[in-house]
């Protein structure tokens, strides 16, 4: 069942030249997590703020649990939308204790019920015993948990998370990601997560929506986004990608490094670009090989090599880090393309 | 917020005793006369009659403006003014109630309103105040018209028309001597660098401390300066038989039209003019009694001073023209 529906949303900020969102249509299924992914300034936070009611789109409609909250005829203020929000900076009330922060949204509950909910929620996020601390006495991760608990306690229809992990240390970030995912799963909470980090989006979301300049580029499962991006922008944004020039001949795409299936059904003679991810490219030292290694980045479990083709085109390859090839090594390339993605040459 | 609410409550609660009680049975006096001068009379009045009094002391002109603004619903009962010009204006605007009694009739006619709307309660003569250290006894001027003599250049001071007694003095000049004469006379004073000060206090202090040799001011200020141990002398100018005399400005009392408590106001006027009221009023602030047989103690009695012959109505009529004349000569007036 669709819980949140945005249809044809357009929003332009006052005094802004370009719209922040244009003609955006999105849906979030009940119990699912949707991730909105995009570079900074793409409008992804604006989507969240429009759902929460902090911004009012000029066009289009938003419904939450079937109730119109924003369209030409309806406007529901944030405090009446039943959404929970976790901010990038957590926005904890500095003058209230952990328990008081969590209790903030529970003012309509009787005291015993509120007390019970606070205890349960803090237990859920692993902060039992921290009730009387103030936000400034907590670590970043703990503050994050309080923000989560505060947003979850009133049992919101949907939980909105705005770059929730970006203020955390990298190791803390992974741990929190797992914990939050677990909590969302346990509680069956519908969530919308905004992030610029594709790893985070892939790890947490059932579906990912990629936004660019206020327009929706693609919305799909994480796997589909990664392997079969529908635009070069998506292909580039969700991971390292190289684009090789090719042309269609005889129902095949011919490129410098080999021949591929014409999956896009491009007409014969058309110039196309084929997307190749580093994990599909393998290098084999050969003398004389068809390419040469010009760069290597050590990435822990793997090495990312940059090779140069005779045409001058650069291509990336990721290899296990057990063997190291020095820069300058002459190599042959082996492309194992499980997902062939092509775009017409622009 | 709780703190604020607390403060608010405490303030409101604290106000109760501070605000004056029900106005209906209290006499409200707007006094342009000094509190020091009026308060003892008020206390004696309350003691005698049992009528409680609330006083609002301020500048006569400020209070007169208030009375005008309060026209729709007067808040004061009695107005004590330091000058008759203002009450004449208020009379014309219909803001005062006539009151005449045996007591008011004891006041000479030129210190009473023709319409009976106000009555003089005491007087102040226009005087020459001089610094004894700066002016040797034989050089002391006996007439205000001597002051245009260049020997007084840079040594003269007077209060501006913010002190309405100054305006009354200049208006009396216009009334008696004519506008052309007055203009020439004032020009002469200005050629002598007459300094126009903010108020009479500055005049008597300036003269007393030696900033100026000579000041034109009112008679009580002489005694005030003496009280402050300043070396001053006084001249009641132009006293020869054919002379200009010197204007005597009455302090006056008037019942405000529409007063909540007019009866008490009238009682107070009678009390002011009675022997006890006069005694207190005169001794408090060295004023000249206007009632014949009241002892004026060290102040010269009314009949010993030759006063300029001009009525309050005439003064009121000429006031605006005089003011124009003054400001045309010097904007500081």
């Amino acid at each position: 069942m669709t819980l949140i529906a945005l249809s044809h949303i357009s929003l332009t900020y006052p005094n802004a030249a370009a719209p922040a969102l244009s003609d955006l249509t999105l849906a979030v299924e009940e119990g699912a997590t949707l991730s909105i992914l995009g570079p900074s300034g793409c409008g992804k936070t604006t989507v969240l703020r429009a759902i929460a009611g902090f911004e009012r789109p000029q066009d289009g409609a938003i419904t939450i649990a079937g109730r119109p909250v924003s369209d030409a005829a309806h406007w529901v203020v944030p405090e009446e939308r039943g959404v929970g929000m976790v901010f990038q900076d957590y926005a904890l009330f500095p003058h209230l204790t952990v328990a008081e922060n969590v209790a903030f949204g529970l003012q309509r509950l009787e005291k015993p019920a509120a007390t019970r909910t606070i205890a349960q929620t803090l237990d859920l996020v692993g902060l039992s015993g921290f009730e009387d601390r103030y936000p400034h006495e907590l670590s970043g991760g703990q503050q994050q948990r309080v923000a989560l608990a505060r947003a979850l306690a009133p049992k919101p229809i949907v939980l909105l998370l705005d770059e929730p992990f970006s203020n955390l240390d990298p190791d803390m970030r992974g741990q929190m990601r797992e914990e939050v995912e677990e909590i969302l799963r346990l509680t069956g909470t519908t969530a919308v997560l905004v992030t610029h980090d594709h790893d985070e989006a892939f790890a947490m979301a059932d579906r990912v929506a990629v936004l660019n300049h206020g327009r929706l580029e693609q919305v799909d499962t994480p796997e589909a986004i990664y392997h079969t991006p529908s635009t070069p922008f998506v292909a580039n944004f969700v991971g390292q990608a190289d684009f090789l020039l090719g042309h269609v001949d005889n129902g095949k795409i011919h490129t410098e490094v080999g021949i591929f299936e014409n999956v896009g059904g491009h007409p014969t003679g058309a110039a196309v670009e084929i997307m190749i991810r580093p994990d599909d490219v393998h290098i084999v030292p050969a003398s004389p090989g068809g390419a040469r290694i010009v760069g290597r980045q050590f990435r822990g479990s793997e090495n990312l090599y940059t090779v140069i083709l005779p045409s001058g085109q650069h291509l990336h390859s990721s290899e296990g880090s057990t063997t190291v090839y020095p820069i300058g090594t002459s190599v042959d390339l082996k492309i194992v393309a499980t997902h062939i993605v092509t775009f017409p040459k622009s | 917020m709780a703190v604020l609410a607390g403060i608010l409550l405490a303030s409101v609660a604290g106000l109760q005793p501070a605000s004056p009680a029900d106005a209906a049975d209290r006499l409200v006096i707007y006094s342009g006369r000094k509190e020091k001068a009026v308060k003892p009379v008020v206390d004696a009045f309350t003691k005698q009659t049992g009528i409680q009094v609330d006083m609002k002391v301020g500048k006569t002109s400020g209070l007169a403006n208030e009375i005008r603004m309060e026209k729709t619903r007067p808040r004061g009962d009695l107005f004590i003014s330091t000058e008759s010009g203002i009450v004449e204006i208020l009379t014309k605007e219909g803001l005062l109630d006539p009151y005449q009694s045996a007591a008011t009739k004891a006041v000479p006619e030129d210190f009473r309103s023709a319409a009976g709307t106000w009555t003089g309660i005491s007087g102040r003569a226009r005087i020459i105040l001089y610094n004894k250290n700066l002016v040797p006894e034989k050089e002391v001027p006996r007439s205000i018209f001597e002051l245009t003599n260049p020997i007084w250049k840079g040594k003269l001071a007077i209060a501006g028309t913010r002190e309405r007694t100054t305006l009354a003095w200049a208006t009396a000049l216009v009334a008696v001597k004519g506008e052309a004469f007055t203009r020439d006379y004032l020009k002469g004073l200005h050629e002598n660098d007459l300094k126009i000060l903010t108020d009479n206090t500055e005049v008597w202090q300036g003269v007393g401390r030696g900033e100026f040799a000579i000041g034109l001011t009112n008679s009580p200020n002489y005694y005030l300066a003496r009280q402050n141990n300043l070396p001053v002398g006084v001249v009641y100018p132009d006293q020869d038989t054919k002379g200009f005399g010197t204007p005597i400005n009455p302090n006056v009392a008037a019942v405000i039209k529409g007063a909540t408590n007019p009866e008490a106001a009238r009682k107070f006027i009678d009390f002011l003019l009675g022997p006890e009221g006069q005694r207190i009023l005169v001794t408090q602030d060295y004023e000249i009694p206007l009632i014949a047989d009241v002892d004026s103690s060290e102040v010269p009695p009314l009949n010993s001073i030759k006063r300029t012959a001009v009525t309050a109505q005439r003064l009121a009529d000429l006031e605006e023209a005089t003011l124009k004349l003054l400001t045309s000569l010097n904007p500081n007036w």
Partner: protein
Amino acid sequence: MAQAGPLTLTPSAPLAPASGWLAQIGTFLLLVGVGLLVLPPLLFLAAAALKAGELGAVTIGSLVGLAVTTLSLATLATIWAMLLALPLAWLVVRTDLPFRTLCRWLAVIPLAIPSYIGAMAYIALLGPVGSVNTWLSALTGSPQQWVNIYGFWGGVFVLGLFTYPYIFLLVSAALEATNPSVEETARSLGESPLGVLRRVTLPMLRPSILAGGLLAFLYALSDFGSPSLLRVQVFTTAIYHQLNTRFDQAAAALLSFVLVLITIAVLAGQQMLLHRRSYVTITGTARLARPLHLGRWHWPATLLTGAILSLSVFIPLGVLLVQTGSVGHFLEVVSEQGDYIKNSLLMAGLAATLAVILGLLIAFTARRTPPRTGALLSGTIQIGYAIPGTVLGLSLILLYNTYVPWVYGTVGILVVAYLIRFLTQSVQGVDAAFAGINPHLEEAARSLAASPWRVLRRVLAPLVRPTLFAVWALVFISAMKELDATLLLRPAGFDTLPVRIYIHTVEAEYARAAVMALLLIAFTALPWMVVTRLREKKLV
């Protein structure tokens, strides 16, 4: 839905819309209330000014002359105040100046000294027959006049001395809030100390210098007491002349209206100058880097500080103390003033408390209304500050005595006058403090179903608490000192300390007036002292 964990977080139905229309009615009522408070006197003024017809006795020439004198006086006084405030603020915040905490506290005291009292003190000292002339004449044996405080430059001198704390407060707070490392970076980039001051520090402080300067400027523009005592012809004294000598209320209204128009122009100019909103708060967080070591500048800096504080605090207070006469007299007078002290404290306390509450509500409402409405609201309130007290008093008498007589004739009318004159201090202060709050906090609260009232009460108000105390103290100080409107509006039998000082001064009882002036200053400074102490102890 997947499965229920230990918690059944079933989405609850959207809660009943309780706050929406209530909030709207509240906003509406507030707008109407503020409008009814501030606009009638302004409209009255405009109407009365129009009645003046062919300018009454006021000529265009005299208007231009007045405008030139008034604006020059206010401008030069503001520059003088800046020259006093800036070095002092920098020294007490950034350096190891001796007794800098004490100096910082003392530097605010001049605000508690009404400018008319400051002027009287300096006339006694520097007047033509003041102490200094007397001493110098006695010393040299020649009776010439050495100094004369009267006139335009005396007005500039006195006004600057007693308004510089407005600039000092804002600038020292801004200095505290800015990171000294920015200046250190500039030094490391090869900029000389003077260059750092010119190119880094001063530009950073510009908004607070301008905001403080504006307060000082508006004060100078609308002050009556000191120019009147020092014999400077400005708008306020000309208005007084029209009212009290000529009884020409129309001409007075016309002059007042021109003054208000000048003020509006100044405020509009400030808006354009600041362009973008700059956020200055009158409370700062005391996170300080290590203070700059003065070294060989120790003595010059100490001397400068001493000189500024002497001119603005010690000398005027000293003159007043000398004037009080004997200790016995002092105590006798003090013992008689119980009622007046109580009246003053109550009125100022009531006005300050209401101003803070209204300031909170107005600043909060202004944030939630379209920007233009908000600007109109705060602009209207600012203009109230510019109406000369005497004129405001008279127009309130007419308006309130005619239409709400049950308010006029009670002390309530004084509170109304104080609110019209000083509400802007509260609105501006609270607004600036709100602007410093992370907007996410308000949004978080709203997403947690908090009504606007709850957002204000539970989130915003507690967060700006230090500012609320400071703003309370500021309005309290202004209301304690107010004389012009109080003189006209007080109910018979109800006098405040400034009114008593005025009466005693007029009656030439200077010793008595001096004692009461000291009392007034002490009681005015008191809340500021308390707020400062509490802030040092981190209690507010």
